């Protein structure tokens, strides 16, 4: 049983101003499954729909964002939950944080600057699981922080007294305090230097290994995926173009976009210039016809301009959406 099964998900931003309506197709026909006990990475450049996808699957859908089609089913302890139709109050109290928690983008500034860290823990804990006894609450927090290798004294600190790496770790500690089934980490290492990054990633990995839950790791940083993820999906312009085990994605990428992405990474010992992909990502308000990547694809053919490529299963875990890959498979 997968933890989350997403089928043909469409989520658009619909806005209307002065009678002109605009539709931004930020997530367009996305299907994937999250297994229990894995780290699943989603990679892609800025504005490819990563954050929108997270918003939708974590159930924080607010207008103008709307789900236009598709299903998202979670399985928590044998209970199936359709995240799009959960009552907001149930969502807020029972699913948020207890089942699905979130390490937000920009975790540096998620802590209320005028309150001690303890108060923030207190609020989160109180919302989902009332602990009236102050000592029990204190013990819970201290235990949890100790387990993550953080000094329990940080509860006493104000956010401005902590370093960026420490704040990021607190964000992770907050997200894991109830041992949720799914931890969504949106760019958890983006503002950190590599040394701190390593520590934060190791922490995420350790937590996942210890409580065998699922981590959905979203970042544009391919090196992070290579280090941490079990499986990686590559997003381009609102769709998943390729998905596979990390070694396969980095070792034998099939989709031209993935190939370019991997080829742009530096390799130790190789002094050659890295090639960059020409052009810019398309405007999701009016995406290109056919394959959305065709205007930038050096191998584009006539069919790419007209027909949207379908997902081709290359292996049990490896799939890609490209006409060229399809032709090769048929041949």
């Amino acid at each position, binding site marked *: 049983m997968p933890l989350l099964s997403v089928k043909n998900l469409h989520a658009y931003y619909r806005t209307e101003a002065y009678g002109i309506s605009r539709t931004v197709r930020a997530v367009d026909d996305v299907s994937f499954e999250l297994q229990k006990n894995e780290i699943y990475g989603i990679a892609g450049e800025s504005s490819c729909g990563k954050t929108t996808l997270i918003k939708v699957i*974590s159930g*924080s859908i607010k207008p103008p964002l709307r789900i236009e089609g598709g299903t998202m089913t979670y399985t928590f302890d044998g209970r199936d939950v359709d995240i799009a139709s959960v009552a907001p109050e149930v*969502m*807020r*109290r029972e699913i*948020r*944080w207890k089942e699905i928690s*979130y390490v*937000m983008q*920009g*975790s*540096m*500034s*998620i*802590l*209320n*600057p*005028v*309150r*001690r860290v303890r*108060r923030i823990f207190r*609020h*989160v804990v109180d*919302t*989902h699981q009332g602990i009236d006894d102050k000592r029990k609450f204190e013990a819970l927090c201290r235990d949890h922080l100790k387990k993550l290798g953080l000094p329990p004294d940080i509860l006493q600190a*104000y956010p*401005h007294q902590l370093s960026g790496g420490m704040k990021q770790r607190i964000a992770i500690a*907050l997200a894991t305090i109830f041992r949720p089934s799914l931890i969504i980490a949106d760019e958890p290492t983006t503002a950190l230097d590599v040394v701190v990054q390593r520590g934060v990633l190791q922490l995420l990995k350790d937590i996942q290994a210890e409580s065998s839950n699922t981590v959905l790791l979203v970042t544009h940083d391919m090196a992070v995926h290579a280090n941490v993820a079990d499986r990686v999906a590559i997003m381009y312009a609102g769709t998943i173009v390729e998905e596979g085990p990390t070694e396969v994605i980095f070792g034998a990428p099939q989709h031209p976009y993935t190939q370019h992405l991997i080829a742009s990474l530096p390799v130790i010992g190789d002094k050659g210039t890295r090639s960059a992909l020409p052009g810019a990502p398309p405007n999701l308000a009016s995406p290109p016809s056919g394959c959305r990547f065709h205007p930038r694809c050096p191998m584009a053919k006539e069919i790419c301009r007209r027909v949207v490529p379908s997902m081709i299963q290359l292996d049990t875990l490896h799939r890609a959406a490209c006409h060229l890959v399809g032709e090769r498979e048929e041949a």
Partner: protein
Amino acid sequence: MRNFILRYLLPRLGQYLVVIFLGVTITYIIPRLSPSDPVERQVAEIMVSGAHFGPEAIAHMRDALTDMYGLRGSPIEQYLAFWARMFQGDLGPSLSRFPTPVISLIARALPWTLGLLITAVMISWVIGNILGAYASYYEKSGIMKVIDVASQAVRPIPYYIVAVIFLIVFAYFFPIFPAGGAYPVGRRIEMSIWAVQTILRHSALPALSLVTVGMGAWFIGMKSLTSNIISEDYVVYAEVTGLPQRKILYGYIMPNALLPQVTGLALNLGMIFSGALILEVVFVYPGMGMLTYQAVLANDYSLIMGIAIFSIVGVATAVLILDLIYPLFDPRVRHQ
């Protein structure tokens, strides 16, 4: 703690004293630049009243007045004597109500102004800020929209126009409240329920005008502050973690949005020592504003000086207190 006193409190107190010293010195110098001689003017006034004095009596009077006004000796000597008298609480005699001392005129007016203005400022601050935060956080609420429009409409109206409107409506068309004064003429103020009631009834309209306009200002300020705070990461995060809206509003948005408003409140409270001039005139309210008005009309320099000194000390003290208690609201400025 020792560190705090030596490196923060003492320098801050020093700064406070310097500000007061400079302010008072400037207030001392300005009237002295005026070409008119208060002693000669007072003598002329007494002469005009028709009484006849011999030259000796006039010389004697001149002498006494020069002493009283602190005008004897060189400017430096006068200045030092001025400070010496200040420390004894002596601001000299009022010129227009000679020989009542300035200090006792101020002492009579100050409680009225403080009572009215502190109450009005606090009420409008509290209500304006709560409503402002609500209006911004619950944008779609109908009541909030009405309050928003009303505040925008009231805000640009000068408070004395509001005062006149209230006066016409509630004292003339519907005579619910007295039209002016702070207590009935000719009655002594004593501690009784009747006195409290009367004073409250008399100050209701002035307070209402101040609250109406003041609240609008705090409301608009708080609304825009809140709308900035709402998009801060820590508020978005609190929403994502599923905190109830009330907790987000009172625990996350207000404590952060209120920081500049606390500064504003302190400055406002400091300003009240000079009174609400036009309002007090409209309502014939015997406070500092009324006193200032009369002093200006009567060219009463020593009284104007006394009021100015009180304002300087008031603002400086308010800012000092604010600086000392601000770390309670914002831990980021706490002295390490």
